[in-house]
């Protein structure tokens, strides 16, 4: 996208230091989030989507994590070079977060009103009374019944779904421009999931904020996304408009994902196979070990550069590269043996911060 994007990430790299070695959790990720738009970051657990999301406001635990390169611009300013204090004025006020686990994201010893109030008073000089009144409004807007009575209740008095609503209310406390929601529905019951997604959609429509949604659930993507970024092993494999992605998936990985879907609804997980080692990633295309179309060139050299395959639609696959177009026939149906290679069940997933 262009300069008017709200958030623009270029070649982001983040690492973790572990006993086994340096894990390159995010290895050169670029994408944009436009104003008022919903972008979904999709990937299996370990694909680096959460690390990417948490790198934006540097919530990443450091140590062991570290952002080692790239540029993150928010509303035209570079946040990677910002001092901690400066960044804090953005956190919660202009960029807000909602996390996966609503059970854990509320502090059990404070009332929900106090926790929402805390978010307000971190950025606005208002009285406690004022903050409390605003907390009631917020609770109402996220659909908590009888908010005036519930504002002083403690988290354990709310159901899981309601806790997530409270967490959303807390995120909205200062009218953020960007809401980063990391698997906001994964820990919830299926029926509640739909409610929360509807809530996010309607809040976005009301407030015109942008949403960066991290998920492994293509059902969620289909429901909310305007545009989609497909992550794999810390790299972006495909970026597309949501309709394009579902109608005309370009990358073999995305196609495999969509083929695995029982209907439109489903999760990324069933594709199986093993993610490449994040410590010592293979040369060439990261998906090559599982790709039914892989040719020798896929296993060597650098990563395939992004190729434009349509309007605002890029895929990082040699099949779209000028030089290899003849060598790889992406439309060929993979043989049974090749398919097998893709869908072998993994014996060990690498849990780099996906659903826990």
């Amino acid at each position, binding site marked *: 996208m262009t300069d008017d994007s709200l958030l623009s990430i270029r070649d982001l790299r983040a690492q973790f230091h572990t006993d086994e070695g340096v894990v390159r959790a995010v290895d050169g990720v670029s994408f944009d989030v436009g104003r008022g738009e919903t972008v979904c970051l999709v990937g299996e657990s370990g694909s680096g989507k959460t690390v990417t999301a948490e790198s934006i406001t540097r919530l990443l*635990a450091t140590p062991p994590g570290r952002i080692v390169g790239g540029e993150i611009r928010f509303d035209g300013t570079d946040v990677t070079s910002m001092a901690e204090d400066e960044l*804090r004025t953005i*956190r919660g006020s202009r960029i*807000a977060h909602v996390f996966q686990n609503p059970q854990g994201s509320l502090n*059990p010893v*404070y009332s929900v009103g106090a926790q929402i109030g*805390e978010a307000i008073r971190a950025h606005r000089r208002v009285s406690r009374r004022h903050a409390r009144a605003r907390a009631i409004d917020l609770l109402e807007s996220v659909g908590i019944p009888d908010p005036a009575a519930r504002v002083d209740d403690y988290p354990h008095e709310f159901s899981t779904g309601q806790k997530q609503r409270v967490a959303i209310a807390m995120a909205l406390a200062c009218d953020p421009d960007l809401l980063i929601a990391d698997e906001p529905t994964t820990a919830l019951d299926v029926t509640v999931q739909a409610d929360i997604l509807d809530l996010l959609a309607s809040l976005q429509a009301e407030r015109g904020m942008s949403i960066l949604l991290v998920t492994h659930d293509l059902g969620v993507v289909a429901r909310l996304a305007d545009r989609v970024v497909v992550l794999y092993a810390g790299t972006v494999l495909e970026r597309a408009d949501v309709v394009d992605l579902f109608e005309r998936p370009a990358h073999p990985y995305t196609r495999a994902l969509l083929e695995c879907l029982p209907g439109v609804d489903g999760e990324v997980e069933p594709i199986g196979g093993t993610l490449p080692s994040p410590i010592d990633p293979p040369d060439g295309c990261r998906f090559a070990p599982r790709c039914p179309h892989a040719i020798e060139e896929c296993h060597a050299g650098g990563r395939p550069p992004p190729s434009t395959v349509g309007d605002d639609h890029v895929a990082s696959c040699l099949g779209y590269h000028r030089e290899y177009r003849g060598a790889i026939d992406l439309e060929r149906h993979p043989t049974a043996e090749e398919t097998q290679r893709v869908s072998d069940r993994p014996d060990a997933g690498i849990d780099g911060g996906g659903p826990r």
Partner: protein
Amino acid sequence: MAWFVGRRLVWALFATFLVVTLTFALLAASPNPETSQAAWQAAQDGSDPEEARALVDQQHGAGDSLTTQYVSYMVSMFSLDWGQSTTYNEDVTSVIANAWVYSAITVIPATIIAVVVGFGIGLYSATHQYTTADYAATLVAFFGVSIPNFWFAIVLMLVFGELLGLTPISYDSEVPFWSLEHLSYLVLPITVLATAAVASEMRYARAEALEYVSATWTKTARAKGLSETAVTIRHVFRPATVPLVTILVADLVGIIFATAYVVEVIFGIPGLGYVSYQALVRMDTPLVLATTLIPVFVTIVANLCQDLAYTVLDPRIDYEGRSP
């Protein structure tokens, strides 16, 4: 909630009753310490131990039935008629009344230091995990909990009293109570008392705080834009107080009482520990009993306070369940 507090109160009373009964049972079912002492002495002198034992028994009116003894024992215990101390030639109650102040002047400051310093370092350590300061604090805490308190007291005495001459060596109860000089007498005892307690509280505080350093709600708090200090205090320390309080009383009582006993004996501070020691040495059973029971009562009351604190600190408390 009233129901919960009531239940804890009833348990406290019941526990008191049981403890007093238990001491009676132990005393009744055992050879009287004085008699066994007499027998031991007789054996060492080469005279007949049985004779000595009978003699002592006679003097103590061991003829009454057990029930009569029990009833009169319980009645006198609960009416605070704790008998006469042969060591001090005074009522046991007045001996205690004179002694407790001397225990309080070391125990209370040490407790405050233990909680403030111990929790402070523990929290710092937890939020700066794997830093040099964290490793150093952990190592020092290991030394603190491992050093034998009586030996530590002696070494401090040797170094600061004998070699450097900075502090007085033994306590002098003639010193005016409210004076700087008095303080100089108390510095070493309080140091010994506080060392083990600080180390222990620090370890607990660190362990509990660590549980919350990586909690999602601390991440949420950071995402809200709170400062590190606010996150540490409100979202790490405050929730950690809940489990901390549940171990605080037992731990402090265990460490501070035991250390105070030894410290009072070593420095000659006439507190409850010292009195208890004198009573044990002089076979002064009424005073031994009193000085054994008073710490128990203090513990029971402290546990009750802990339960009450718990109701205030933890909104999730389940009033029906057993103590957490």
